[in-house]
């Protein structure tokens, strides 16, 4: 088996030599440069543009504003987050909104002219932060795309809470956070008549294709999206945000290929962010730790309804995390004059599990109970929300192995009871979970006459290892060494695949690849049987397999080369499709799980917080490549350290302007912040979940990290911080 092996990433050589080509790096002849201009007020109307200076600057080809922008269409349901296209009217609803595009011969000239564009505004009233408008929270209109209601409950949450002997009530808050992938959003757009080609950095080429086709009112087949490498996305490249459309608009106006790359500052106002949340939790518990009642009310920040709707679904994990008969969850929104929020790594789960798993720690403290014992006491053997068995759940082993690996037994129960010189030492843990998603996907197998195989799918590799693991799956299906399998992706001309989000790529695309492999194998075997005449007369397809470019039968073999030569073809293409069972056919609840542990050290004199060790043990289903899977785990845990201790987007209330829109003051983890990480995956192949057996790894290791660290900080210091990120000043309170 090649699948599962820790083989080196197949695109690794390109990445370490600088040969991997990201969106902005395609050399398209005659390309000119576009730079965006953004609003400097939070609400109001654009009264006018003063463009004379900018227009007179050298090399300027066009300045596009709402006054002269081509009209874009939203007919045909544009599948992107922002339902209102940019540059179509003069209303400003947030600071940093796109208000003009400047196109010039060179990047330097476009930047200089963009800086010279002046706007006059009629300012309106703005509500720039959520804190001041919590009393205006409203019910989402389109929660989970209308697939479910924003509220749910079971049993009698209020009555059981009132009757509970031990009660915990607390409010947890998480800030606006920005994805900040290292590669800024970038698009090169080129028109040829009514045909558009874009090289764009996206987590979903099929979505980008549909969006652009819709906006410009052309056939999907006339839009080609190319994206062989993505420099990180984390959700920010999941939807097709206005800059991609504006690049195509500019290219149409100047009739030249246009390159538009966002600045790091513009990355804070152009492609969503994780919205601030305020979460109220109420837990009623028996003296022995049995959960009697759980309530989780979440409010998240929204923009103005004109832009669409995004809800951070914070309480969904709470519904299924523990066996508790009485439970209620709600989701509300508060509209402010900020951009539209969006999915960010583990949307919902990351802030939601921070809240519920911090609250569980508070329960354990109140009961003087070991936090793992409390969780085991309430272990959900089946999904208490969906009332279905889990396709697999090995969380108990995650707790056990994680505790052993981490040395949990050394932990003393009392907070502030472990020291190492001036350092207060704390050990914390939290549960992690993330749903196993799957969407319809297609893949094509091309059998070559020389026996090699090409795997093609219009998916994308965000760095998660798609190129590598799809090759591994196919190599095993055809009995080929991996060198003889090539994977092609990142082009909308390939069979369609879903957005790479929600940790669903392996389950979705992998299942399609397996389906295509099976069909291709069947096809090859059928060809061989028919070509063999008497030799294999009466043989059943099940008696054959493929190996090293040949159909091997009972007895003897026939090469694909011979069969194709007879047919005078050089290759045979077979497409396979896979989709998840429909809602009504669902027999199991599908989730990945994990147990996450953190050791922190807090300087008793200065309050400095250091994470000194991290351990995570995960039940993520089948591992397709032990090396790339491990990288996903440490990457997610590192991202979680940022959420716990560093990351927060700050808004100036008066102007609605983001004041730390750069990557030095929006602090993300650097190398020195990250300690030794132990990350393990249980052997846990789950073919009930999907044909691949994988449950998704992109988000899972992020989910429990913030709570584990917050709980460790409490254990170190006795200070419970319910407002992320946890900062040094919290320790000096």
């Amino acid at each position, binding site marked *: 088996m090649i699948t599962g092996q820790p083989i080196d990433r197949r695109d690794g050589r390109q990445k370490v*030599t600088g040969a991997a080509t990201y969106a902005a790096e395609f050399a398209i002849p005659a390309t000119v440069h576009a730079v965006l201009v953004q609003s400097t007020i939070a609400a109001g109307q654009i009264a006018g543009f003063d463009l004379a200076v900018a227009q007179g600057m050298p090399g300027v080809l066009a300045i596009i504003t709402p006054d002269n922008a081509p009209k874009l269409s939203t007919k045909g349901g544009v599948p992107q987050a922002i339902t209102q296209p940019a540059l179509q009217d003069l209303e400003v609803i947030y600071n940093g909104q796109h208000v003009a595009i400047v196109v010039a011969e060179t990047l*330097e000239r476009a930047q200089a002219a963009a800086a010279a564009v002046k706007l006059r505004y009629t300012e309106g009233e703005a509500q720039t932060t959520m804190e001041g408008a919590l009393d205006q929270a409203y019910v989402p209109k389109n929660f989970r795309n209308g697939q479910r209601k924003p509220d749910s409950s079971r049993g009698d949450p209020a009555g059981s809470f009132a009757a509970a002997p031990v009660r915990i009530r607390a409010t947890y808050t998480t800030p606006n956070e920005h994805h900040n992938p290292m590669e800024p959003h970038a698009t090169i757009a080129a028109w040829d008549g009514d045909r558009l080609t874009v090289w764009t950095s996206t987590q979903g080429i099929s979505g980008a294709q549909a969006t652009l086709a819709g906006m410009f009112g052309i056939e999907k087949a006339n839009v080609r999206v190319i994206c062989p490498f993505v*420099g*990180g996305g984390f959700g920010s490249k999941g939807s097709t945000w206005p800059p991609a459309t504006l690049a195509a608009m500019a290219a149409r106006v100047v009739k030249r290929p246009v390159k538009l790359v966002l600045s790091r500052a513009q990355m804070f106002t152009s492609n969503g962010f994780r919205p601030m949340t305020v979460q109220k939790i109420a837990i009623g518990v028996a003296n022995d730790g049995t959960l009697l009642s759980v309530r989780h009310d979440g409010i998240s920040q929204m923009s103005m309804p004109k832009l669409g709707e995004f809800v951070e679904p914070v309480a969904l994990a709470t519904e299924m995390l523990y066996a508790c008969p009485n439970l209620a969850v709600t989701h509300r929104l508060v509209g402010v004059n900020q951009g539209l929020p969006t999915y960010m790594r583990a949307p919902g789960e990351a802030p939601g599990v921070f809240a519920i798993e911090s609250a569980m720690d508070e329960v354990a403290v109140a009961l003087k109970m070991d936090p793992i014992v409390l969780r085991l006491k309430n272990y959900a053997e089946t999904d208490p929300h969906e009332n279905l068995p889990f396709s697999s759940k090995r969380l108990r082993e995650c707790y056990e192995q994680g505790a052993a690996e981490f040395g949990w037994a050394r932990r003393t129960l009392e907070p502030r009871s472990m020291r190492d010189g001036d350092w207060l030492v704390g050990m914390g843990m939290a549960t992690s979970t993330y749903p196993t998603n799957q969407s319809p996907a297609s893949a094509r197998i091309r059998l070559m006459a020389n026996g090699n195989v090409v795997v093609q799918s219009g998916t994308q590799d965000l760095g998660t290892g798609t190129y590598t693991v799809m090759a591994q799956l196919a190599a095993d299906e055809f009995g080929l060494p991996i060198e003889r399998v090539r994977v092609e992706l990142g082009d909308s001309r390939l069979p369609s695949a879903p957005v790479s989000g929600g940790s669903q790529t392996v389950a979705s695309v992998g299942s399609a690849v397996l389906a295509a492999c099976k069909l291709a194998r069947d096809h090859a075997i059928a060809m061989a049987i028919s070509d063999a005449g008497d030799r294999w007369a009466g043989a059943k397809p099940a008696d054959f397999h493929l190996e090293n470019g040949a159909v091997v039968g009972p007895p003897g073999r026939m090469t694909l080369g011979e069969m194709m030569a007879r047919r005078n073809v050089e290759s045979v293409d077979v497409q396979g499709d896979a989709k998840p069972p429909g809602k009504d056919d669902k027999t199991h609840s599908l989730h990945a799980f994990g147990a996450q542990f953190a050791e922190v050290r807090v300087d008793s004199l200065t309050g400095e917080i250091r994470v000194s060790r991290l351990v995570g043990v995960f039940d993520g289903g089948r591992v397709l490549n032990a090396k790339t899977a491990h*990288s996903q785990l*440490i990457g997610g845990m590192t991202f979680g350290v940022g959420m716990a201790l560093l990351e927060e987007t700050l808004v100036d209330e008066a102007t609605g302007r983001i004041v730390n829109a*750069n990557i030095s003051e929006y602090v993300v983890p650097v190398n*020195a912040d990250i300690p030794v990480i132990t990350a393990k995956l249980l052997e846990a192949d789950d073919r009930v979940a999907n044909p691949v057996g994988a449950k998704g790894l992109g988000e899972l290791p992020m989910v429990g990290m913030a709570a584990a660290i917050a709980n460790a900080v409490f254990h170190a210091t006795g200070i419970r911080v319910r407002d992320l990120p946890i900062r040094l000043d919290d320790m000096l309170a």
Partner: protein
Amino acid sequence: MVLQVNGQRVSLSLEPRTSLLDALREYAGLTGTKKGCDRGSCGACTVHIDGRRVVSCLTLAARAQGKAVTTIEGLASGDDLHPMQAAFLHHDAYQCGYCTPGQIMSAVALVQEGHAGSDAEIRENMSGNICRCGAYANIVGAIRDAAGRA
């Protein structure tokens, strides 16, 4: 303007304000050097000038004239990867790969500077190179490995 990049003479028509990073990416066709912030904060644009690591976004192309510029494209000799590149490949010291050229250029310089003595020293001296994919643990492993073999 004439630059010496990876041992080659590159003649470019540039404005005085053009950064070395933009000169490489937009004019010389050397896109291996990445732009992450354009403000000196992320390290993605790290190159060597006369053997020293610099962030090319904060270096004017004009200031690099007459000096030897080395980028990620100039590190391997033919098909043979530089030991640091091989170590990054083997340790999977990346995910998306966008920060990787900058990490590798920093790492090569760090070993030459004698700053790869311990994991703690590596972490400290590599903290100017942000990896949002969070590959730090593997980056440390790769550098430790490459430094040991160098």
